[in-house]
């Protein structure tokens, strides 16, 4: 029997610490080589630390939510040495003895085929008064945890529930041994349709659920807090008439070659930003406020704020200045899919110089986006709405979209910010200009 210590490996360039987000094993669990011992999160990427060998978990250091430094001890494993067979056997034997002793209902001693010789007249087994004391001798922590009950239901009922979108863990079974019957699923569905059970009108709900903020959510929280605390935000909202842009977009989408992606407003906006930033280079930058240094970038790396099931993630379209509108569209699609399925690489989630945020159909009329630090500008897109616009002689129906943007007021003056947005607006209102060579 030997002990192996698993430490937090160097999980990525420049990462000094990582947060423990999951520990799927418990002390005493047997693990196989390659099985995940601990999941850690660094800079938005989750890394699973696999077991290097077969063995048994002897010690677990950090808890979920804790931050640990590279090189810290995570888990200790008992791994078999040369006397593998014997070493592995002893704990098993010990635990099975424990499990037997406090189980008074076992008809006959386990492991004996003489079970068949049980006299038929034997009364139903009852816990004798002597037994509980035996059970009490066993230290409680040595008792194996009771497994989470898997819902008891026949295969056809499981399929029926799945088709109806019912999670059987929430259904009360009325069959023998609480087996879930088809009627139980129907009853659950009927209740769900009526809404939560409130048989006598309104009732107070005094429940409080405690949820630990860990992983990506915690990182988002920390960054948002830090951003708002450190950066004086200056926000600016302007109306953009996108009637012509929408006509152009509809036409391009209708006549596009097969295999090309459908264009949304975002790729047009990205191309327009690239053009506008040529006149306003200070906005395409990262501000290292600790060292009083602003880095202005030649390339335009546009962060695309993306909602995932775990929370906000900002994958980055690198070098938008070198991408066609089609490339922009494909990159957005590829990166947001990667972000949503959690397979985006570290380098795809870092290095943006300006960020674009859009809530699509939920865009609202105004938003106050928070800067994706250390950038100095973020452009928010609001929803497009048909509005009456006075055009000289009459009201005309025009498609109007607001741009809600925020700037780091330490670096960007209001005047410059407004100039940039006006340039952007001019481009979007006469979209041919977006594609003109300069």
């Amino acid at each position, binding site marked *: 029997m030997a002990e192996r210590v698993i430490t937090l490996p160097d999980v990525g360039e420049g990462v000094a610490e990582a947060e423990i987000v999951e520990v799927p094993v418990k002390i005493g669990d047997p693990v*196989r*080589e*390659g*099985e995940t011992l601990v999941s850690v999160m660094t800079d938005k990427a989750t890394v699973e630390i696999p077991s290097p060998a077969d063995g048994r978990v002897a010690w677990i250091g950090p808890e979920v939510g804790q931050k640990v430094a590279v090189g810290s001890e995570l888990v200790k494993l008992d791994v078999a040495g040369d006397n593998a*067979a014997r070493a592995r056997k002893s704990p*098993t034997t010990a*635990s*099975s003895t424990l*499990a*037997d002793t*406090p*189980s008074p*209902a*076992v*008809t*006959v001693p*386990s*492991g004996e*085929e003489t*079970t*068949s*010789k*049980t006299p*038929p007249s*034997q*009364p*139903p*087994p009852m816990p004798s008064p002597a037994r509980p004391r035996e059970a009490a001798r066993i230290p409680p922590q040595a*008792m*194996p*945890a*009771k*497994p989470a009950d*898997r819902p*008891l*239901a*026949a*295969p056809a009922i*499981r*399929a029926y529930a*799945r*088709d109806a*979108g019912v999670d059987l863990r929430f259904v009360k079974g009325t*069959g*023998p*041994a*609480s*087996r879930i019957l088809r009627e139980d699923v129907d009853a659950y569905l009927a209740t769900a349709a009526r809404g939560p059970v409130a048989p006598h009108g309104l009732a107070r709900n005094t429940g409080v659920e405690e949820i630990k903020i860990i992983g990506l959510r915690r990182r988002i929280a920390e960054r948002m807090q830090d951003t708002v605390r450190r950066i004086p935000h200056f926000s600016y909202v302007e109306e953009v008439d996108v009637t012509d842009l929408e006509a152009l977009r509809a036409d391009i989408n209708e006549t596009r070659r097969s295999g090309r992606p459908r264009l949304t407003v975002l790729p047009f906006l990205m191309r327009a930003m690239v053009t506008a930033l040529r006149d306003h280079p200070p906005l395409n930058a990262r501000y290292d406020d600790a060292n009083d240094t602003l880095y202005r970038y030649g390339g335009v790396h546009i962060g695309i704020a993306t909602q995932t099931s775990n929370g906000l993630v900002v994958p980055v379209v690198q070098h938008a200045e070198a991408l066609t509108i089609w490339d922009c569209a494909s990159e957005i699609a590829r990166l947001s*899919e990667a972000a949503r*399925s959690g*397979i985006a690489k570290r380098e795809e989630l870092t290095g943006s110089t300006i960020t674009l945020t859009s809530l699509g159909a939920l865009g609202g009329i105004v938003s106050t986006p928070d800067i994706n630090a250390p950038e100095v500008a973020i452009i928010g897109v609001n929803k497009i709405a048909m509005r009456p616009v006075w055009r000289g002689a009459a009201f005309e129906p025009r498609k109007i979209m607001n741009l809600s943007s925020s700037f780091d007021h330490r670096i960007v003056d209001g005047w410059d910010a407004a100039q940039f947005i006006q340039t952007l607006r001019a481009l979007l209102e006469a979209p041919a200009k977006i594609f003109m060579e300069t």
Partner: protein
Amino acid sequence: MDPISCAVLVLGGGPGGYVCAIRAAQLGLDTVLVEAGRLGGTCLNVGCIPSKALIHAADEFHLARRFATGSPIGVSVADPRIDLKATMTWKDGIVSRLRGGVYGLLRRADIKVVNGIGILRDGKTCVVDTDMGRQEITAEHVVIATGSESVPLPGLPFGGPVVSSTEALAFEDIPARLVVVGGGYIGLELGTAYRKIGSEVTVVEAAERILPQYDAELTRRVMARLGKLGVEVLLNAKAMGIDRSGPALRIERGDGGEQRLPADKILVTIGRRPRLAGFGLEELDLRMSGNAIEIDDQCRTSMRNVWAVGDVTGEPMLEHRAVAQAEMVAEIIAGEKRSFDKVAIPAVCFTDPEIVTAGLSPDAARAAGFQIKLASFPFTANGRAMTLEAEDGFVRIVARADNHVVLGLQAVGQGVSELSAGFALALEMGATIEDIAATVHVHPTLGECLREAALVALGQGLHA
């Protein structure tokens, strides 16, 4: 050749692959199957089916030989013989009949079968070098069903007298001396069969007992029977290498001493491993779980719309698991809501006597934290077993002590493999001990022992 584009591409024509293809086609999906070898995979060609044929022939011959020396049931036979070539021809006939059936099923389902090794370029594209040229296939969904292969022992590579189960199912002559390395079910099934048709058989097992995955109460019967049949079993013994002068296998015994086991054939059956090489899989960004492709409870891999079923996804490497996964994957691709939620994947060892297990063993149930009720019923008290001269063995029930829900069912005995269907049904339906006790079982059958065991568990045993 013109590129093919389809909804589902299945890589591998074993039970996982062809069943997935048929189910997908039934659901209206345009399906292509790629297989380089013969359809039917390991199971049909070099696994379950041919080994069961060989075991049956060996059992029949063994019985005839017993009758030749007189028997209590009054049957006698003079001078029984076995012609292994004829046995193999008969066995091959069964295999090709079944394989023809698979071809027919695929044809009728309108599934295009491409012959050749499929190499995946990415998660959507596959290139196959066929006899007619290079075929490119693009698919919306790819199902990896490349199966498994025998694991060679380091220092004892396959070749010459060292063979895997594949060659052992096609020996031309009965080996006079057969050494089996690895006391798992494959080695024991084949070793027992060859012993019954006349080979001197020695089994070399590195662990302290045979069939280490099964509980000792079950395997003890097999061990005893091996002894009666004259199969020598060396436990805690390690194969060290081949001695070509003999040929013979050099082993290190449990006591540390070395020994030379003369052998005409050395059958290495230390396990099987997922077959991953040669399909371009290493180019894909597939997450692995040990040496198998990692899947979730819907057989999804870490790549979108790339699925994996069967042995390539690891243990338990069983045909019926692959088939269950394959049907499910086809249904999910077709838009149905499914997940792999089986309570039990039963397993059978076609040893002598047979072992069948479904659900949790007593130890596994305890380790899972259950307080259990345990009861068994022996075949010695069963009428049908007596008339079959099959009194060795028992049926056992593992149930929760609190609500009597059955957690596991096991049996060891002649012909008990046929009890597996009832065992699995009881577990999937969530039967309690009372349910089994209240179900009428046919008399006289071996299956009655299941009900009797239930009665024992309830303290109401009638015949015990």
